[in-house]
């Protein structure tokens, strides 16, 4: 201290030093929570996953990551119901994940946010479900590796059907009628999710329409879809639809707790349902809407993408190749040990013994017979625009045709921005 007391302090210098220190401190604080391991070696990778509901999934993903020797991989487990928003925001920052799971959506490709993975998939391309390859391909390049296929359908309790004298419905009218017969003072007839958005695409497909045409024009604005929305509005106000359940439809709780007789959910929930309800569980596809429609199953799922703006694109691609292409044991473990999912690799799907009999086998059958896959051109903005249609026509008493027209306008504007 004595030395410094003799120093010739200049106010500007002091200020400069103070500001420099403060700025450095601030920046260090910003940068310290990158979640990267490896102490700045530059090899650390960060991967984003949405929070799977089944016990053990997070631990499994961390276990696989730990087994990878070429780079330290940190897993960020994103909870909440807005994974896509958190992911999109993160992708613009310096703390963006190197590897992330999502659904194939073309705006990620057009905006240069995902890396071309053709070279790692090409050698095993034929072993993949070809629909999964198509849904990840833009101009001949493949942008994501499918990890799991998740067919979604309606689950029901056969014992309650028998008691109410109800047959498995194949049309929307029959479904609404069944919900009415199944509703008692304690049990609601059907649960389609708290905001009904998870049946958005099944409704379109079951009405014989599609999200987009093959040359990327809106194809959802049809009279049959409008009629379907009108019928759903009737169901919404009938008192037979379970609303505001504590857990949403992706979670099997509503059916397990006896709050509803029919529930929209995915194949992932089968083990939990079977454990709680034993054999008293059945599945059927989303029923036909209107005379020209056809029953449908939504073959959702999750895929791995590499952030094209990551500093470690090559390392990230290596990791994705190692885990989701080479490590078949882990892929099978991930698809069948926690929730049930269909492996997109044909060889794995054929050898997965847990999916060969009983209810899971029936799920696979519906997946093959009625399944519709994601269309890479149907982006989050378009999905959200259609969710607004559901909110305004089913939960509110809006005119379906007018709402569909408004939605088509928004979708057109998006398409114009994406495809010119």
């Amino acid at each position, binding site marked *: 201290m004595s030395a410094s*007391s003799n120093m010739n302090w200049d106010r500007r210098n002091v200020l400069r030093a103070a500001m420099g220190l403060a700025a450095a401190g601030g920046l260090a604080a910003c940068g310290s929570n990158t979640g990267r391991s490896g102490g700045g070696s530059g090899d650390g990778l960060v991967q984003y996953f949405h929070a799977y509901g089944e016990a053990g999934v997070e631990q499994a993903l961390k276990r696989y990551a730990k087994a990878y020797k070429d780079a330290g991989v940190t897993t960020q487990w994103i909870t909440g119901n807005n994974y896509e928003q958190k992911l999109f925001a993160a992708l613009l920052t310096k703390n963006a994940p190197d590897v992330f799971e999502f659904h194939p959506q073309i705006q990620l490709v057009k905006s240069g946010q995902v890396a071309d993975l053709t070279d790692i998939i090409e050698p095993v391309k034929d072993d993949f479900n070809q629909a999964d390859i198509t849904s990840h391909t833009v101009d001949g390049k493949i942008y994501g590796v499918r990890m799991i296929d998740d067919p979604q359908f309606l689950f029901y309790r056969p014992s309650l059907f028998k008691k109410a004298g109800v047959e498995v419905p194949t049309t929307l009218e029959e479904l609404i009628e069944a919900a009415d017969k199944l509703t008692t003072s304690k049990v609601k007839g059907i649960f389609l999710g708290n905001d009904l958005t998870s049946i958005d695409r099944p409704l379109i497909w079951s009405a014989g329409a599609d999200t987009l045409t093959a040359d990327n024009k809106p194809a959802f604005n049809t009279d049959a879809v409008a009629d379907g929305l009108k019928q759903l509005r009737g169901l919404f106000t009938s008192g037979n639809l379970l609303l505001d359940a504590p857990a949403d439809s992706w979670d099997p709780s509503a059916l397990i707790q006896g709050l509803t007789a029919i529930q929209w959910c995915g194949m992932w929930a089968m083990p939990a349902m079977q454990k709680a309800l034993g054999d008293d569980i059945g599945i059927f596809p989303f029923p036909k809407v209107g005379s020209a429609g056809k029953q449908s199953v939504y073959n959702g799922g999750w895929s791995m993408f590499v952030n094209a703006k990551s500093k470690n694109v090559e390392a990230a691609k290596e990791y994705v190749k190692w885990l989701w292409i080479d490590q078949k044991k882990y892929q099978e473990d991930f698809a069948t040990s926690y929730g049930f999912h269909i492996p997109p690799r044909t060889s794995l799907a054929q050898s997965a013994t847990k999916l060969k009999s009983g209810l899971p086998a029936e799920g696979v059958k519906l997946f093959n017979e009625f399944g519709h896959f994601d269309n890479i051109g149907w982006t989050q903005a378009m999905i959200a625009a259609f969710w607004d249609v559901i909110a305004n026509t089913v*939960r509110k008493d809006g005119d379906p045709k007018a709402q569909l027209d408004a939605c088509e306008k928004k979708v057109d504007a998006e398409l114009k921005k994406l495809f010119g």
Partner: protein
Amino acid sequence: MSTTTTRGVAQPAPAKVSRPRPRRSLRASSTFNFWLFTGPFLIGLIIFVFVPIGWSIWLSFFEARFTVTPSEFVGFDNYQQILTDANFRNSLVTFTVFAAFIVPATWALSLGLALLVNRLRFMRAFFRSVFFLPTAVSYVAAALIWKMSLFNGVRFGLANTVLGWFGVDNIAWLANPDPPWYWLVIVTVRLWLQSGFYMILFIAALQNIPRELYEAASIDGAKPGWQTFRHITLPQLRATSTAVILLLLVAAYQAFDEFFNLLGKATWGQPPLVELYKMALGQNQNYGAGSAGAVVLTLLICVVTLLQGKIMGFGRGEESK
């Protein structure tokens, strides 16, 4: 800021600057102390407030989708888009409705609680703490409790259980916007969270009212209760009430958490911040239009605050009361 200018005059003459000064003078230098204490705050303010505001204004003139470093200048297109967007205009209506509910309700409840607690003869500290505690709870956590346990739509939700005793059917509080029960959920959660804090402000103000006023009133024949409250307590709380209302309005403008967590994928009950979040950070990733909306909103807030200051006399001298 006036400190800097006064101290600037007090600077040593140029001839003296070259001479080595003892460190003592530096420590005593008010200018140095001024920067020492305000510097870190100012740096934070510049980095986290002024730079983003500037950046936002810049972005609002560009086509900025999926990027915050755009290159395509589009002039006022984003402003045109946001001002013709029905969702954005509706969000301003939503905010007005929300403020119309929450500001008077919180004002009345916190004043009522303050009056009750202030009259207590025993366990005053206990009740003061009990009512204040919810202030420490996060809005997100409270919103989830309201959504999943108090106001869920099934028979074992607290609200539906109570209604069930009177033979009323289960109500879907949040899923069904007709009738708009969701306002009850949204207003009660905020009421619970913030009333305790404003109660403390009112208690402090109540304790500052001179006892002599009440004694004099009583001698003049004023009846205790409504009459003294109306003619003594309430006028004496004017300054605090004004501040509380201003703070409540600011808080209502900033409402986000409970709307976002309670209403999810609805098209109604979306206040401006939720709407802008969806536009810029959500599915649309349109930072240009989102920033334009933020600029419009900032201008609106400025205008409203200035008007409010004029009407309520906030910041005017004591004599003008």
